[in-house]
């Protein structure tokens, strides 16, 4: 098991290097003059002397590869550079906002599971019934709606028409207790959870259907076990294994979704920071956020692979 984990971590390193190189060169190639952005003087003339001083100060006078390796070594020590706009370290402004994004994404994932687990299992158990077709239809509709539009529709109906919930998030943690947090998080989390709930419902349903047709389930039934213990004791555990991998892919979609959702609901996470940085062309911050999101995504998928290998010994023993 430990060799498997070690091998997966080692495999992640070249991926990380390629990703960071692509992100770095993408922003290096960006048209526009960073000196003007740093000095905040787009209209005025900047003298060559001033330019040289700022370039040296920010390390912009060095060749591309040197700058890239500096970026990598600094990033490995938790230094993602300095924002052109606020002149604050990028890493600390990302870390300030990261917990809020995690709370939102975590709530969304919980919500998606709370919907998809019962719905998917019931649909499979009542195969070809009305509940089954309803769940399948809902799942297809769920992946077809634009997530952020669903969020806007929630604002229009629940906040503006019915006045049940605030339009923008005033709290983003449990500091004022559970209830205010719940009221603030339920709309953005629903909007973020929509696609994931839909994909998972489909996945749980088909995986459960597969398992129910297996010989060992038939055997458990023929032994005279109660239907309840056949389903929850034998079938469900195995049905959930393929579902775990889907969660990994969905986390990536969720990060993209978080950028849009956070800006709709004014949720103070890194997604909103990304949108603000893009409009201000604050490239070090954009670069830092992209890298942090890619790394988070890789860590989640690494954890999922490890869980997967842990619950299904065939995988770790295979290679």
């Amino acid at each position, binding site marked *: 098991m430990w060799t498997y984990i070690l091998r997966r971590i080692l495999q992640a390193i070249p991926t990380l290097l*390629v990703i960071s190189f692509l992100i770095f060169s993408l922003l290096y190639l960006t048209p526009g003059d960073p000196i003007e952005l740093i000095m905040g003087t787009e209209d005025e003339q900047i003298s060559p002397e001033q330019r040289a001083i700022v370039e040296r100060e920010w390390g912009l006078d060095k060749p591309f590869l040197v700058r890239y390796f500096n970026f990598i070594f600094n990033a490995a020590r938790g230094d993602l550079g300095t924002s052109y706009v606020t002149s604050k370290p990028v890493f600390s402004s990302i870390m300030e906002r990261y917990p809020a994004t995690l709370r939102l994404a975590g709530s969304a994932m919980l919500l998606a599971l709370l919907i998809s687990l019962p719905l998917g299992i019931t649909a499979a158990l009542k195969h070809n019934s009305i509940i089954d077709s309803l769940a399948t239809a809902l799942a297809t509709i769920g992946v077809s709606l634009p997530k952020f539009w669903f969020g806007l529709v929630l604002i229009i109906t629940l906040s503006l028409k019915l006045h049940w919930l605030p339009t923008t998030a005033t709290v983003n943690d449990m500091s004022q207790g559970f209830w205010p947090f719940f009221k603030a998080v339920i709309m953005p989390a629903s909007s973020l959870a929509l696609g994931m709930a839909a994909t998972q419902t489909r996945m749980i349903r088909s995986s459960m259907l597969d398992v129910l047709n297996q010989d060992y389930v038939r055997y458990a039934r023929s032994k005279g076990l109660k239907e309840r213990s056949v389903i929850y004791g034998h079938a469900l555990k195995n049905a959930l294994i393929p579902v775990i991998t889907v969660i990994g892919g969905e986390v990536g979609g969720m*990060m993209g*979704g978080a950028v849009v959702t956070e800006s709709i609901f004014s949720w103070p996470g890194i997604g909103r920071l990304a949108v603000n940085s893009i409009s201000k062309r604050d490239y070090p911050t954009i670069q830092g956020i992209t890298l942090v999101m890619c790394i988070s*995504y890789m860590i989640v998928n690494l954890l999922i692979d490890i869980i997967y290998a842990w619950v299904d010994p065939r995988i770790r023993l295979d290679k």
Partner: protein
Amino acid sequence: MSDNNKVNEKDRVMDEIGLEALPVTNYWQDVIRLFTKNRIAVIGLIMMIIIVVLCAGAPLFTSHDPITEMNFSELLFRPGQGGHILGTDDLGRDIWTRLLYGGRNSLVTGIAVTLISAAVGIAIGLVAGYFGGTVEALLMRFTDIMLSFPFLIIAIAIMAVLGPSQRNVILALAIVSWPRFTRLTRGQVLQIKQLEYIESASVAGFKKGRIMFNHILPNCLGPLIIQATLSVGGAILSAASLSYLGLGADAAAPDWGVMLSQGRNYLQLAPHLTTIPGIAISLTVLSMNWIGDGLRDAFDPKMRK
């Protein structure tokens, strides 16, 4: 005469196999038959045809202009008010008109992204799967790395660099979408490569390119067509997200995502500015997904008899 012969031949075969035998059909006829039997898939196809006809023939279905025709005495009309079927936007432009012209952009984006990423992805997948060895290892490692990006984040970063325009949206989304086609194609090629007819083709001395494109590719089309259908819908959704963030199509263009992003300032006053383009996106993507699901069932060998 030849038609008669064919009919006779068919009758003879039917007599031999017996009456309970299914009519003799080839692969694609089978797929079409299974697809048309699927009610939801057919509804999706009809919806898609209607949407394409409405958008492609936009000038036939409206007398307004989507961009220049602003009327400041008719701001934010509700649907039906003043002869505007779906009302007007914050600059007094007819929403129905903008919806029709905007659909053109969304469909073009969805289809262009799919065509480009499919062409690139399939080519790489064919080469990797057919040649194997180091070529395959390198190409697939790169594909896996591209797949390990959260793709909308990368599209956002690319758009932040390239600047907003429809062409850049297509480019950015194509850059992040091709690896799925590569994975799928390679998997198919690895299976088909083992079959005897490929062996006999190489023994017969056919060139590698010919074997790849004429002999292998046609037999992995099924899953690729399904993936392409779903990819059109996915690209339309992603393009809408980018436009909503102000990173998509040009802000003046009639574009469903741009329309949504204009509507966000009028959620209280004129919610139809937001709901209408969202419904249009949802219906388009839904019909693509229904078609894709129908194709999946039609291509699935387990469903065949």
